[in-house]
């Protein structure tokens, strides 16, 4: 959703700001050196998928104790490593915006909380 901007506002705008909504501006932010490992949307959906895999395998592991159920734990471990790799690519993209309050929008807090939860889960 866009909002109207006066010429006075525009003249006071700092160089990094645009007339576009913040979320749209963020999606067109300059990529980090070396580019993105994955397209941003694929990174986000992969994070969701890896998180879901970690959750499901974790729940199944609660009732798994036979040696022949090792695959459940292997999948859980692999999902944790996927999360770490994806988290690295995600942070490369969003960290410049997270550390600059002027670029925050209503999704920022939720996004940071989600990243912290993923990082915490990966560390377990």
């Amino acid at each position, binding site marked *: 959703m866009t909002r109207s901007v006066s010429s006075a506002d525009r003249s006071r705008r700092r160089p990094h700001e645009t007339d576009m909504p913040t979320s749209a501006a963020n999606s067109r932010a300059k990529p980090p050196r070396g580019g993105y490992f994955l397209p941003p949307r694929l990174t986000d959906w992969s994070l969701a998928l890896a998180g879901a895999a970690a959750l499901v395998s974790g729940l199944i592991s609660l009732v798994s104790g036979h040696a022949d159920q090792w695959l459940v734990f292997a999948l859980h471990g692999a999902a944790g490593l*996927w999360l770490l790799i994806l988290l690295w690519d995600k942070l490369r993209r969003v960290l410049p915006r997270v550390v600059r309050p002027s670029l925050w929008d209503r999704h920022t807090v939720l996004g940071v909380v989600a990243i912290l939860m993923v990082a915490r889960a990966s560390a377990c």
Partner: protein
Amino acid sequence: MRFSALLAAGAALWPAQQGLERVLALPGARRRFTGSREAGSYAGNAFPTSSWVADQPLPLDPIAWQLTVDGAVATVLTLRYAEIAAFADELEATLDCTGGFYSTQRWRGARIGRILERAHVLSDAQWVSFISVTGYRWSLPLAEASAALLATHAGDELLSHDHGAPLRLVAPGRRGFEWVKWLARIEVRTTPDFGELVAIHTSWLTPAGRGQP
């Protein structure tokens, strides 16, 4: 292509990490495949105590205590502690707690299969539910239950109260929260017990679970 590489990298990194831990003899190499660390194996009651939720029953008097076996059986049994202990069966099994430790013990008590023989399980029986004085319960398939043990001892030591005295379930291959403590009743069933999924979260609210007489 990169996405595939990511999946492959994650899948390859996990066994690589395991191998590195073994080569460098890192503490993680001593974990069980579940991720649990060893604690107090073959040391009687020395292994850690934990409860799935927060059951805190009062200590049970083994002299007065009785175990009831009922449900899909031809003969309802009421067994005293001394009768259970007299079986003197042994089973070496690993308790793997979801709290992060595992402990291997030589458990002593009564093979459940021998008790079920006395009760003359009916032909349509399929499950065996193990019920604690607190109301906490968990069930096993009949064949698996028959191979499990009702433990009175951990090694040469009488089971302590915190470890479920006078009687706890020893179920090889099952996680610790399935090894029901403070057993009071065994119910043979023809159908699965889905209510146990609620019972294991609410047993701490019962009078017995809260330590009331």
